[in-house]
């Protein structure tokens, strides 16, 4: 049942295998087994202690089973307890020897001391040996009727243990209905609570096969049962209260007066010092009032103070659990918490996982009146010694800028970040400025002035470098040095390890070329040559595509690569609202802490079949399906990535728009893509283009300084492949996917 965990692994040299010690113990136990000398119990205690301590550190002491059982004939309760613990641990692996214990356990079940009866019954049910179930039924039956509540408490859990060993034995003995009776009549609330736990488990498991069980399970949330439990709620221990409250959330009251009665009754639970009780109560309140908008909002107002108190009292771990729930509520209804923003300020000594939640909350609650203060505070964190948090603070500022108010001031701050000369600050800020420009192109003038001053040599992180390059390409007409910076970047092509950056560089050089052809001509030639020779297949493809489309028609190329852009109005959300609702339904559970619904982290056996199919259904519904899948994948990522996703996701989209080359066929919504596709198709179907009208080709080669000898000529097989391409889109895509593999191999060979 427990520690011998490590016993299976081979004993490490540093840890004694304990073999000689165990045989030593065996000998000593034997000597004591029959002894009735005074003080023998004390020596036994010492020996037993040794056995248990070996067991805990993982030494296998199962060979002592016989001796331990022999020594257990004692009236000393401490000895008995140690013996029970031992037997419970090893019975499963020693079923034959365990049979020896049945006798004395059964006898103890009839002891006159209720303490002994309870202990023996608990141990008897903990043996977990399927052959023994027949020995359990009798003692359990009388245990449930015992006059002592301790024994009944143990017996109820014993029934559940029996159910897990042999469900049929348990059901055949009619134990569930006895438990039901006890639940509704026992004077001891812990007995009642245990009955409730046991019945919930048993009936949920049975419900899939038995209609009666599923009816019984439904009956647990019927009005009489709920009212009976609610009326006794103050008698229950704080832990049992949580159990009852969880059950109450499933109850559907018939009218609003019932709702108010229940809330009235539970109101004072919100003042409980135990966070679990408070959260369970809050869940009841939130669920009861879901359909009553006004009251629901009042509930938020009411629970705010108790939640904040819990967050600031107790251990960091406890406050984290509560804070996660507060986070969920803040994200749902930021406006209700907007005046409490100061509570979400980070303290310097808080662990990162707490700071991260707080940063998200600060971002969410920002509005007209508090944005200035929040952004000021976030800027303090940007200079923080804790670099990951500093980065996220900067992202938070950016997010506020993207969705909130007072953009003017925030842009100034972001630009100040760029001037801080800390490389990670610069990196984050660049990414943000890029996103910002995509939403507010009108700011380009101010931003460009600052961005232009940044030396690309100081920017090393791929994301930041890509952002900088994107801006250089996009705003090359306003940035004096843009072609030259790009050119120097192109010259260092081989030192650039990130494919993402190289892709952006290709596109940026193209854009720059359309705007300032004479200055960029050289750079474009070098870039295309380097790109076509690149071993990364995406880079290679994009370069080749640009090359060909330029050959075909420069103005078409411009329409494809640098179409007029519309400002992004809303950046995509990380999580679908459906997933958020699901998490909200699972309030006061791990789903809230992990920020994903339970089906994403609980394995099938611990999830009802109902929920699983439910989930599948959702995914296959209608046009949002793809969206859901994306969110589901997103959610899988860890917290840090979650923060990233908005910008990242956009980034990928951005790149697909910038150089629509190869992701285009998958994204049918963009007009430029349609244009692109038709062009490709016509290009390919057009024999002249495909055949390389030699003149056109030479002309463009000349223009770019791309003399055939200088650039490795595109190997001929690929062209043939292209000419033979069928125009049916799916076939086309299929080919398109196969093509690069062959090509890049050829390229590698030629190098």
């Amino acid at each position: 049942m427990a520690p011998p965990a490590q016993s299976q692994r081979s004993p490490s040299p540093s840890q004694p295998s304990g073999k000689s010690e165990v045989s030593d113990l065996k000998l000593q136990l034997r000597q004591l087994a029959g002894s009735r000398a005074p003080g023998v119990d004390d020596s036994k205690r010492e020996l037993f202690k040794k056995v248990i301590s070996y067991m805990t550190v993982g030494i296998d002491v199962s060979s002592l089973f016989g001796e331990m059982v022999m020594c257990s004939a004692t009236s000393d309760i401490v000895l008995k307890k140690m013996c029970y613990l031992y037997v419970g641990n090893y019975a499963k692996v020693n079923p034959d020897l365990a049979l020896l214990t049945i006798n004395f356990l059964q006898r103890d079940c009839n002891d006159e001391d209720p303490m002994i009866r309870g202990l023996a019954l608990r141990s008897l049910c903990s043996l977990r040996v399927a052959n023994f179930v027949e020995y359990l039924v009798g003692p359990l039956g009388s245990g449930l009727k015992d006059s002592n509540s301790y024994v009944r408490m143990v017996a109820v859990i014993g029934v559940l243990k029996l159910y897990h060993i042999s469900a049929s034995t348990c059901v055949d003995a009619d134990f569930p209905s006895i438990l039901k009776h006890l639940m509704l009549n026992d004077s001891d609330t812990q007995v009642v609570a245990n009955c409730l736990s046991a019945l919930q488990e048993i009936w949920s498991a049975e419900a899939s096969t038995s209609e009666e069980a599923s009816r019984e399970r439904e009956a647990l949330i019927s009005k009489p049962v709920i009212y009976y439990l609610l009326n006794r709620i103050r008698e229950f221990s704080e832990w049992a209260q949580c159990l009852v409250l969880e059950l109450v959330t499933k109850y559907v009251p018939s009218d609003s007066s019932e709702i108010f009665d229940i809330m009235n009754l539970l109101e004072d639970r919100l003042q409980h010092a135990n966070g679990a009780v408070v959260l369970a109560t809050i869940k009841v309140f939130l669920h009861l009032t879901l359909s009553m908008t006004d009251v629901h909002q009042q509930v938020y107002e009411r629970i705010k103070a108790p939640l904040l108190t819990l967050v600031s009292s107790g251990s960091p771990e406890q406050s984290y659990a509560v804070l996660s729930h507060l986070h969920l509520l803040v994200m749902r209804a930021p406006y209700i918490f907007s005046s409490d923003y100061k509570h979400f300020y980070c303290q310097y000594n808080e662990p990162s996982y707490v700071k991260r939640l707080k940063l998200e909350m600060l971002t969410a609650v920002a509005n007209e009146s508090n944005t200035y203060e929040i952004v000021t505070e976030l800027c303090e964190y940007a200079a923080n010694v804790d670099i990951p948090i500093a980065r996220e603070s900067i992202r938070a500022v950016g997010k506020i800028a993207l969705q909130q108010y007072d953009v003017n001031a925030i842009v100034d701050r972001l630009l100040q970040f760029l001037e801080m000369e800390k490389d990670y600050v610069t990196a984050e800020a660049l990414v943000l400025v890029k996103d910002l420009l995509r939403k507010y192109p009108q700011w380009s003038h101010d931003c460009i002035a600052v961005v232009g001053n940044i030396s690309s040599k100081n920017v090393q992180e791929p994301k930041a470098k890509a952002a900088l390059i994107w801006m250089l390409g996009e705003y090359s007409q306003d940035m004096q040095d843009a072609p030259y910076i790009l050119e120097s970047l192109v010259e260092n092509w081989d030192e650039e390890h990130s494919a993402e950056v190289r892709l952006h560089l290709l596109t940026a050089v193209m854009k720059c070329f359309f705007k300032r052809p004479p200055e960029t001509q050289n750079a474009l030639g070098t870039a295309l040559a380097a790109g076509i020779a690149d071993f990364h297949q995406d880079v290679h493809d994009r370069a080749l595509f640009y090359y060909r489309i330029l050959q075909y028609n420069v103005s078409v190329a411009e329409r494809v690569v640098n179409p007029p852009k519309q400002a992004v109005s809303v950046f995509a959300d990380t999580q679908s609202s459906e997933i958020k609702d699901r998490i909200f339904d699972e309030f006061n559970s791990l789903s809230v802490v992990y920020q994903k619904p339970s089906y994403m982290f609980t394995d099938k056996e611990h999830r009802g079949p109902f929920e699983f199919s439910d989930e599948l259904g959702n995914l296959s519904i209608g046009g949002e399906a793809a969206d859901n899948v994306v969110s589901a994948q997103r959610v899988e990522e860890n917290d840090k990535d979650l923060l990233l996703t908005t910008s990242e996701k956009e980034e990928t989209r951005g790149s697909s728009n910038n150089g629509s080359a190869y992701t285009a066929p998958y994204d049918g919504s963009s007009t430029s893509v349609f244009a692109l596709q038709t062009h490709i198709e016509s290009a390919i179907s057009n024999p002249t283009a495909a055949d390389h009208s030699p003149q056109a080709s030479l002309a463009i080669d000349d223009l770019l300084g791309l003399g055939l000898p200088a650039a490795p000529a595109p190997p001929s097989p690929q062209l043939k492949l292209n000419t033979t391409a069928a125009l049916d889109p799916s076939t086309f895509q299929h080919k398109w996917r196969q093509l690069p593999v062959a090509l890049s191999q050829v390229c590698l060979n030629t190098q």
Partner: protein
Amino acid sequence: MISQFFVLSQRGDNIVFRDYRGEVVKGSAEIFFRKVKFWKEDGQEEAPPVFNVDGVNYFHVKVVGLLFVATTRVNVSPSLVLELLQRVARVIKDYLGVLSEDSLRKNFVLVYELLDEVIDFGYVQTTSTEVLKSYVFNEPIVVDAARLQPLGPAAIFMQGTKRMPGTAVTKSVVANEPGGRKREEIFVDIIEKISVTFSSSGYILTSEIDGTIQMKSFLTGNPEIRLALNEDLSIGRGGSVYDYRSSSGAGVVILDDCNFHESVRLDSFDMDRTLALVPPDGEFPVMNYRMTQEFKPPFRISCLIEEAGHLKAEVILKVHAEFPSNITANTIVVQMPLPKYTARASFELEPGAIGQRTDFKEVNKKLEWGLKKIVGGSEHSLRAKLTFSQESHANITKEAGPVSMTFTIPMYNASRLQVKYLQIAKKSSSYNPYRWVRYVTQANSYVARI
């Protein structure tokens, strides 16, 4: 519902391991420890208290360097399990007097006995120290408390001040005193953790007091107790907007919110601010409260950084104690991150400084200044000369700070919340147990930006 419970030492050894349901792999303790130890490669980030590995959810709390862990496969309430772990630690401490690796190892059989009764098949049965008394038969083996790291906020009474009997916090609820007779006594501690953030110009940006009235009773026969707080105490502010101007005249204590232990009856609380309760055995919080009302911060911090020539700078730190001179703060530590390119720091203490130490932590470039005590009304200062390894382009103040401070001030409470009287229902005229009401204020997050 939990599946396993175990306690690991700092090195990852199992001290106690109990499997309640056999649903989780046996090697879970190792999996857990490896995950916690190597959470992020750079070792900079702590593992969160809850995480999932291969469908198993691991919960842990850290108490005196030990890891109290629970596992489960079910989607349970994280609050419930984390509260439970904390409570188990407290119950064990109630029994052992001192919670430490040593005391746990010496008493692990007793701990197993407790665990058997606290949780059955993964379901919590009881965490009441008192109820458990009737099920637990092992006598605790008391370890020498003096050598050990104290546990919990109340433990500060063991340090420094001799006014308080230090034994209380390390006394087991079941062990008998050497004389064989138990002393009738009750401890009420008002523990306040304060958080203050000063802006670079010295204004208070945020401030909060998180307080607990903690009780530890060694009274026999469960007498009822009445605890009277400030009569003019008021709870709940109109909305929870921070508004420092609204704090009304002197003397009135306004709490934002508070919560109470299960045993507390609030029948007359609204009338006369009196809590009535029959204290259970062991240590427990009677009431937790939170206050954002303006209060006078106990320390003012000022910090000045100046360039002092090529690759050199000077930092002058000043701490001024704003509390009365009959009160003394102890174990004060002032910390300040210095620019990353700081190579050396030399310190100059004020003349005649006693019990002060200074340190420059090379690894994280931190200045540390420790003071054994600070008497109310006094001011202390430190001068640090920094040498840089490279030219700084930016403003040095942007590269350094903020200054943070930790301290403990016994017999001082920032909120002015008071226990006016502690009344114990008398059993006989000669019954007069010892009553200890103690106050202490600690820094939670005390930060001055520069």
